[in-house]
């Protein structure tokens, strides 16, 4: 076991533009122990980079998210962002998660496939009617998950321009002052609060109405603020990452023309293509949501002391050659597919089945309808966001 190396590296390693994974991760995986990193704000943290270490930290109850509230948590902006259920541990976390989780199980989500396929098909119809080049983000990648989550949750999709501003602000890492961030968050909460009031008066067949009914059944189970924040969380998490991954996946596929040709030749392979891309694409520029050890725990040959934070790099874990042979190659026929793209443990992405379905249907319709798809210009990348991806991606076909 190594003792704490006091050298602390500046983090994040990855550039915000593009989808490269910094070579520093490979070095960290191959060297003994773990490294310590410092984000722009908060205390230094251990950084887990190997698959097994990341899985341990995310899956072991001795690591707590709730404990971060009592510490100077590592973060990329000066202020703390509201964590919602991602800032909670079981059993509180389970109490809230279960209210939403049943709407997103594989069984429930699979029934939505024909409807999602229809939406994706209509969006491509509109692209073809408009003629290329078009911005894939604005005309396809964003409206697809927005329409789906709005319908499921019960938010009017035509409010997209309003809530996109607030949603972007919530996921920004440093472009806003604390006051601006707080104002955006308050506006989104107020907007959602109004919708909740409307639904309470006139329930519909949507998740918001179901949550309102759950609170009416048992007011101790869900406070009014928790209800509003769950809806905010579902709306933001329910579209932002999928909308970002669709152009990311297309960008990677078009950078590997022989792989895109495989998908075009056999569109039915979309599910395995999506799994490999979920592994391959390092979505985050860095890491956030540190886990605090509640007792001494050995991770990767280091004794993490109680009260110390650990950050995990999912992108690095997904490129760990000990788990995935030839990790930096894009291969659709892998036998080992248990990537950590949706995380792991109690905070494993609640919407993973829905995200999978949307990504599969998105790639499927593009491969079938636009086999000549190509980038008409270099993508313009978002910066200063928790997730990396094109802000604008002009494509033609």
């Amino acid at each position, binding site marked *: 076991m190594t003792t704490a190396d006091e050298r602390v590296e500046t983090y994040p390693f990855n550039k915000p533009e593009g989808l490269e994974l910094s070579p520093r991760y490979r070095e960290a995986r191959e060297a003994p122990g773990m490294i310590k990193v410092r984000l722009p704000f908060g205390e230094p943290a251990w950084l887990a980079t190997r698959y097994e270490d990341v899985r341990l930290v995310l899956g072991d109850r001795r690591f707590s998210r709730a404990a971060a509230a009592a510490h100077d948590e590592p973060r990329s902006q000066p202020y703390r962002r509201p964590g919602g259920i991602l800032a909670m541990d079981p059993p509180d976390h389970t109490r809230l998660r279960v209210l939403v989780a049943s709407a997103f199980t594989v069984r429930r989500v699979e029934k939505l496939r024909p409807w999602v396929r229809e939406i994706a098909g209509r969006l491509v119809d509109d692209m073809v009617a408009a003629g290329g080049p078009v911005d894939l983000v604005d005309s396809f990648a964003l409206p697809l998950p927005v329409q789906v989550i709005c319908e499921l949750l019960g938010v009017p999709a035509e409010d997209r321009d309003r809530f996109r501003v607030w949603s972007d602000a919530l996921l920004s890492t440093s472009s806003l002052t604390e006051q601006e961030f707080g104002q955006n968050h308050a506006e989104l909460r107020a907007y959602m609060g109004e919708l909740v009031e409307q639904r309470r008066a006139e329930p519909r067949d949507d998740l918001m109405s179901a949550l309102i009914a759950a609170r009416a059944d048992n007011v101790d189970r869900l406070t009014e603020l928790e209800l509003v924040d769950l809806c905010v969380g579902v709306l933001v998490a329910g579209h932002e990452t999928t909308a970002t991954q669709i152009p990311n996946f297309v960008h990677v596929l078009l950078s590997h023309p022989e792989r895109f040709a495989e998908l075009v030749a056999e569109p039915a392979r979309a599910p395995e293509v999506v799994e490999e891309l979920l592994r391959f694409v390092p979505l985050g520029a860095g890491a956030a949501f540190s886990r605090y050890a509640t007792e001494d725990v050995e991770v990767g040959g280091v004794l993490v002391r109680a009260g110390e934070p650990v950050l995990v790099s999912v992108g690095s874990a997904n490129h760990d050659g000990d788990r995935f042979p030839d990790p930096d190659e894009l291969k659709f026929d892998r036998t080992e597919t248990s990537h950590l793209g949706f995380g792991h443990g109690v905070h*494993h992405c609640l919407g993973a089945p829905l995200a999978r379905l949307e990504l599969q249907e998105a790639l499927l319709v593009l491969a079938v309808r636009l086999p000549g798809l190509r980038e008409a210009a270099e993508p313009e990348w978002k910066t200063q966001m928790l997730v990396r991806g094109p802000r604008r991606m002009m494509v033609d076909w």
Partner: protein
Amino acid sequence: MSWTIAVDGKACLGSGMCAGARPDVFALDGAHARVLADPVEPDEGLLDVADSCPAAAIVVTGADGTELAPRD
């Protein structure tokens, strides 16, 4: 009046949700979760965990054979 807990290994995605929430009942040491404690005493929290499984792979059965969770 104990309950039976089962994990469908074919459906399990290995998310670790169950083992993280209730390490006394579930473990994830391989690709799929396994049940450590079965049968168990009736426990509302286990129904919640079964409902939360993204793969709906956890089935809780009551003493009389009725399926208690996942609840649709």
